[in-house]
């Protein structure tokens, strides 16, 4: 198998549980035990109240497309052979938004407000990316 040629996340102390969850097929959000807010990306503290009492909670994995672009000329290493592909900001039902790819449909079928659900796409043995596909009708 060819080595993975695209950029890969390098999980940190704060983000490692997110990527471990993705590997298990779970979309996890960092949540604040002090004020209850969920956030993405994860950080050392809650962005709202600065508490460091944080825990991980499973999200539904469902959401909708907030905005998107179809990339025809990429500047990201390893993606040249994939164009055109869809990059989107997906708003999760729990509130936080994630940058992702929309897969499982032609790129011209991607629309704002389209309902989507997470699909867990292994990139390497260690890293699974969280992409989204149209919710089954």
């Amino acid at each position, binding site marked *: 198998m060819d080595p993975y040629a695209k*950029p890969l*996340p390098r999980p940190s102390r704060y983000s490692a549980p997110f990527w471990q969850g993705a590997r298990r097929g779970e979309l996890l959000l960092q949540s604040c035990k002090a004020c209850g807010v969920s956030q993405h990306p994860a950080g050392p503290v809650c962005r709202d109240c600065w508490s460091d009492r944080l825990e991980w909670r499973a999200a539904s994995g469902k959401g909708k497309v907030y*905005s998107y*672009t179809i*990339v*025809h000329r990429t500047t990201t290493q390893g*993606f040249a052979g994939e164009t055109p592909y869809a990059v989107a900001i997906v708003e999760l039902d729990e509130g936080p938004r994630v940058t992702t*790819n929309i897969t499982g449909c032609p790129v011209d079928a991607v629309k704002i407000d389209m309902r989507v659900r997470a699909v867990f796409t292994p990139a390497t043995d260690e*890293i699974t990316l969280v992409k989204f596909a149209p919710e089954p009708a």
Partner: protein
Amino acid sequence: MRSTVISGLAELSAMKSSGDVTALGLYCQVAREAAADAGLERGEIDGLLIHTPFDGFSLYWPTVLADTLNLKLGFFDVVELGGASAAGMVWRAAAAIEAGLCNHVLCLTADVFTGLGGVRDLMPGQRQEYEMPYGASPPNGYYAMVARRHMHQYGTRPEQLAKIAVDQRTNAMATPGALFGSKPLTIDDVLNSPMVCDPLHLFEVVSPCSGGAGVVVSRRSAAKSAHAPISILGAGEAGSHLNIARRPDITHSWAQDSAAKAFAMAGLKAADMDVAQLYDCYTIAVLILLEDLGFCAKGQGGAFVAGHDLTWSGDFPCNTSGGQLSYGQPGGAGGMIPVVETVRQLMGRAGERQVLNASKGVAHGNGGVMADEVTLVLAN
């Protein structure tokens, strides 16, 4: 900031390649030309603000440049706000002068285009971790998503965005040193140029290049320039987020806040401006800034652009030197284009493209994806 002025300027030609001249070499050239324009000798310069260039990125850049130029400084620093750095330098310099730290501050930017590879390694960890693995190609992909959302919410049309690039090209054709100053553009040319990130076409995206520009901020009582000094009537700064997805509505930027502060400080409003120089990494950035600075209501940017002539001789002179879209984007120096061109117009030194009777202007810098915003209100 009424006791300070902008007393001089310099701008190098945009170059596709600077040969073997480094960013440090370009910085020295801009410093020499800016100081001379302000009528200052080396020994009179006692302040220095710069942007760390991609070429030769390291710690201690202000120290390196001060050493290279043999300056004796009372104030020096890096301003690291991406494309808003240059505008951010101007009010910092004025504040330092008013605090009594110095009298003449060189505010300089310069960079050599070295390819995107090196830039990639300088990206914040969050961007490397959550954006690049999806091929998001920041910032192209994100500005495209801002444009898409703007179209969705307000019905903005591709030809309206394209007109921004067309009018700015007309301006570049009257600007010596512009990278794309020789050939006019039509709206069809823009819409027929290759799609980069839908809905943004190639001619709606800046072209990276090498170059540099700067201004000198001086204590009013110490200014020596042969040119009429330019007053800094207002300044505003606002931010920030790393990923624009964290804005509740990505069609509204922090520029609303920076502009409100700057215009309030100046006691003026957008409609009072004779020229508008707005950071233009992409056509959509100009459209958002037209709305957020208050030239039109939110969502009306498309109609505003279609209904006005943005060329230097038009009814709404905007990005009169061609902006980054047609002058070129010399890395972090691109953000100095709005500042230098506003000063040039207000000094009456814009030559063929001089806007008649220009007495007040707004220069706006934008860093990241509408993340770091600085608005300056200037007057002669």
